[in-house]
């Protein structure tokens, strides 16, 4: 179990208040379970002091010179994981909504080689923060879309709390959706015939920063993700 090297990627955009707690949390889990784990904070060109805070922490960090959005930000982390030969890459958002205790639950199926992609879901056990009503409707819609396209049920398709094994890292190293990547990536993984697994985790309401999705953007989000999903489906259907 200890031989596998894990990279935790923490995407950050203006998270100066929460990022330190997130990194310390990960560190605590690392020492407690004796994992061979590195933390990589990817600063997506924040306009506040996130970078200054990150420099004081005991972690690796990438500093993007241009704001790329969450997808491009995560892909930078995955590329890094690919090049440095990590076996597992985990995404934990920098706003503190994914408590690091869930990390071990995410990693176990990968250590045991039971799955290629493990997604932390807040809906399997219905504990912790359950997200807003509007967002739950959106999540339900994406669940239906995923079932339709790849015949797999992912309950929490917008969850950003996910872990990939080496095979998946190689795939996202080549292509990862740009904006709002989570539901689209699930279809991508499904079509690459990866084994998806959902595990129940607790989620909290964000501690700092603002959501990447405001009220006005909800409709845009829905259209963008639907289009992106459909095009990924058309592009990858043949493989």
């Amino acid at each position, binding site marked *: 179990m200890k*031989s596998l*090297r894990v990279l935790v990627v923490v995407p950050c955009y203006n998270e100066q208040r929460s990022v330190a707690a997130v990194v310390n949390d990960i560190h605590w889990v690392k020492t407690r379970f004796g994992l*061979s784990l*590195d933390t990589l904070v*990817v600063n997506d060109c924040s306009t506040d002091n996130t970078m200054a805070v990150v420099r004081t922490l*005991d*972690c*690796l*960090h*990438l*500093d*993007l*010179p*241009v704001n*790329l959005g969450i997808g*491009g930000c995560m*892909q*930078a982390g995955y*590329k*890094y994981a690919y*090049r*440095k*030969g*990590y076996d597992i890459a985990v995404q934990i958002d920098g706003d503190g909504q994914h408590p690091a205790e869930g990390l071990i639950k995410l990693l176990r199926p990968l250590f045991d080689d039971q799955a290629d992609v493990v997604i932390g879901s807040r809906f399997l056990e219905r504990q912790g923060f359950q997200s807003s009503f509007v967002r739950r409707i959106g999540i339900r819609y994406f669940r239906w879309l995923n079932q339709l396209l790849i015949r797999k049920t992912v309950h929490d398709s917008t969850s950003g709390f996910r872990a990939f094994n080496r095979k998946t890292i190689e795939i996202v190293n080549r292509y990862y959706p*740009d904006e709002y990547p989570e539901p689209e990536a699930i279809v991508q993984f499904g079509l690459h015939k990866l084994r998806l697994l959902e595990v129940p985790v607790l989620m909290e309401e964000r501690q700092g920063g603002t959501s990447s999705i405001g009220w006005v953007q909800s409709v845009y989000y829905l259209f963008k993700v639907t289009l992106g999903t459909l095009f990924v489906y058309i592009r990858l259907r043949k493989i």
Partner: protein
Amino acid sequence: MQSLPITIQLFSIVGTLIFMAFIARLIVRGKLREEYSFVWIVCAIILLVFSVWRDGLTQISRLLGVFYPPALIFLMAIFAIICFLVHLSVVNSKLQHSIKELTHEIAILKKEVMDMQTPGTMVQTNEKQSNLT
């Protein structure tokens, strides 16, 4: 339809020539890449042809069964503009993709340079160990 008065014909020929010269100047100065200038040169040539061939528009309209010749101009112009806009969107998407790739490279290189400048930190040793395995 009456044929056009000679003054407007002169105006349009001179205007088209100035436009062509302007495009040529942009290319010479390196402000416009050749692949994008192509469409503008073709445009200018078409304009020039119709400036010289005074009856052309009316004859083509009659041939196509278009009752009102200026409608044909609008149709063609709008079609050409839409095509060019799509082309620009494609170029834009390509640029965006390149910027993303470059940003990733810069970020990773920046990290490597930083690591070389400040050796011996805790994170560094950690990483070196993991690189060995």
